């Protein structure tokens, strides 16, 4: 594998949900790319479209009501969106694989965990039962599940949350995927276990050179592991940046607001600067920049016309804001 190969390229992806009471524009032109060994964090609050982005890339959008209405998802140069479902299915697993938020509900309760991991090998590689089980044990050891040999026949409810997430990870990496999408992999876990799981993902990525897309709403989780961050708001990327730069000097008012809303020990006793208001209703998006009703930088130009496009601020950084100069320059 070329160390800096561009694995995934998403161009102007658009997804809408056709509901009874109107069309919800869940994703409105999202573009990003992912290289080998790179970790891209997609950050955003609930309903910002980060999980829908992942589902659209994987092709597991619930359809109806969800429809991809435009854009490209290129995996190693091939556009997945125009591929027939049969071809696309071959990419899922060995090409792009995914980890879900809640590992308990991501595991089938009626089968032993080992069986579920082994199923990956039986289905995709046509292995026999015994070989597949041996591989399952190997994988369980690789994700540091203690006493894997004894536990291979245990059922999901017999594991703790952290262990279940490890099993889910084992399933996701079973076929040595090129790209791994982790959709809020640690949200359902407590803090110490979160750190272990993030460490495990990093370790597996280093071993295999995967590209990792980490979807989260937790700024703390991404700080240690991500290389680049893409901040999402109302179905658009509002800022993309290297991780250190973003924390040091946000270029979009939304990112700034997010960073200020993290409780900090050195600011003890002061009122926390939360972002007021709620994300916009996707069925009735405000005119202009979707963030303007909550933005303290908002001026008249923000309230009308098209949302501002994502434009380069400095090399390697882009933000979608009319007043990016003020925000970026404002220390």
């Amino acid at each position, binding site marked *: 594998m070329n160390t800096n190969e561009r694995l995934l390229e998403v161009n102007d992806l658009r997804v809408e949900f056709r509901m009874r009471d109107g069309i919800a524009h869940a994703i409105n032109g999202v573009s990003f790319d992912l290289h080998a060994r790179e970790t891209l964090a997609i950050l955003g609050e609930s309903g910002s479209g980060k999980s829908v982005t992942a589902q659209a890339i*994987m092709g*597991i959008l*619930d359809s*109806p009501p969800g429809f991809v209405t435009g854009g490209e998802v290129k995996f190693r140069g091939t556009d997945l969106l125009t591929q027939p479902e049969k071809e696309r*299915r*071959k*990419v*899922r*697993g*060995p090409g792009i*694989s*995914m980890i*879900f*938020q*809640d590992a308990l*509900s*991501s*595991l*089938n*309760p*009626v*089968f*032993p965990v080992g069986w579920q991991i082994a*199923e*990956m090998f039986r*289905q*995709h590689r046509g292995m026999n039962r015994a070989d597949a089980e041996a591989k399952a044990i190997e994988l369980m050891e690789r994700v*540091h*599940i*203690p*006493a894997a040999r*004894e*536990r291979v*026949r*245990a*059922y999901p409810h*017999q*594991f*703790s949350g*952290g*262990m279940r997430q490890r099993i*889910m990870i084992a*399933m*996701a990496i*079973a*076929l040595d995927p090129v790209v791994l999408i982790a959709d809020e992999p640690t949200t359902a876990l407590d*803090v*110490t*276990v979160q*750190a*272990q799981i*993030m*460490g*495990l993902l990093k*370790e597996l990525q280093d071993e295999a050179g995967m590209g990792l897309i980490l979807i989260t709403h937790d700024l703390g989780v991404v700080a240690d592991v991500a290389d680049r961050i893409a901040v999402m708001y109302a179905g658009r990327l509002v800022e993309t940046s290297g991780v250190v730069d973003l924390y040091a000097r946000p270029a979009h008012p939304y990112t700034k607001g997010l960073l200020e809303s993290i409780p900090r020990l050195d600011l003890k006793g002061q009122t926390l600067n939360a972002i007021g208001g709620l994300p916009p209703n996707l069925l009735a998006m405000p005119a202009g920049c979707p963030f303007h009703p909550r933005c303290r930088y908002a001026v008249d130009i923000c309230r009308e016309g098209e949302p501002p496009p994502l434009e380069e601020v400095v090399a390697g950084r882009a933000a979608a804001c009319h007043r990016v100069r003020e925000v970026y320059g404002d220390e």
Partner: protein
Amino acid sequence: MTERPNAEPENLTQPQIMQPQAEIDASAREVNLDLQPAISARSLGADAWEAMRRSPLFWISASLIVIFVLMAIFPALFTNKDPYDCPLELAREAPSPDAWFGKDLLGCDVYARTIYGARASILVGVLTAFVTAVIGVGIGTAGGYVGRWVDTLLSRTADVFFAIPLLLGGILIMFTFPSTAETPYMVVVFKVVIAMAILGWPNIFRLMRSSVIQVNPLEYVQAARALGGSPWRVVTSHVVPNSMVPVIVVSTIDLGAYIATEATLSFLGIGLREPAISWGQAISDASGLGYIRAAPHMLIFPSVFLSLTVLAFIMMGEVVRDAMDPKLR
């Protein structure tokens, strides 16, 4: 040996204070070396068995079912009399040491005929439950999984059949396709089975459809798709196994109802007929004018056996329901 492990062992490996990542992993691995836990895998089936074992109702209904099933397969184990040996001069004779349950209208031994009658009831009940389950699960999965117009079409079709009462429809079908004394035994049995299955499948269909709709959006089904599972694989190994519990429960309970319906059809003279022996026919013969008072034994024994069989299956269904899903109670 089937004890659930009291403390989940990996809990012990999670340190209570924050440590750098490398240390956490290292310590996790170290601790685990000393903690080779004894793990017993327990499937849903094993869990259900554990719960059922403690229920006296389970043992009562299970033993009754075992007895009736043995009776159906090996009637000769229970009696050495020939049910077709009917000396007419002994007609309607009261129970005696020689004929425990007495003799019927034609002088046949009531005990022998009651034992031999189990076969028809059990066969009809089990086959009907099986056929309705297969049809209902198949069509229900299709409706629930595919959705859209397929689901609408199947659901409305099921509604049409659901609207016809089981007994009324059974009478209609059996009347339209009557059997004669020459019709082979299995053909008559299958006719009854098919008549009831045509009317019984919507029940299972509805259950299966709704549980498939519940299971389908769950994350493990999504996960199976995201990891490259083909639709067939997703349905057979994730959707169907997780939607089966209500079907198993209701099929067991319905089995009793089918046996009762078969007896009713035979009672009306349109289900199983001579030379086949069935409890419905025996009850029908025995309830002729004046016989109930003159020779009650002809009625009582087949009725008691019929009631016990129906009761056994319904009780079993309830025990299974309680064991498999306490929420359904």
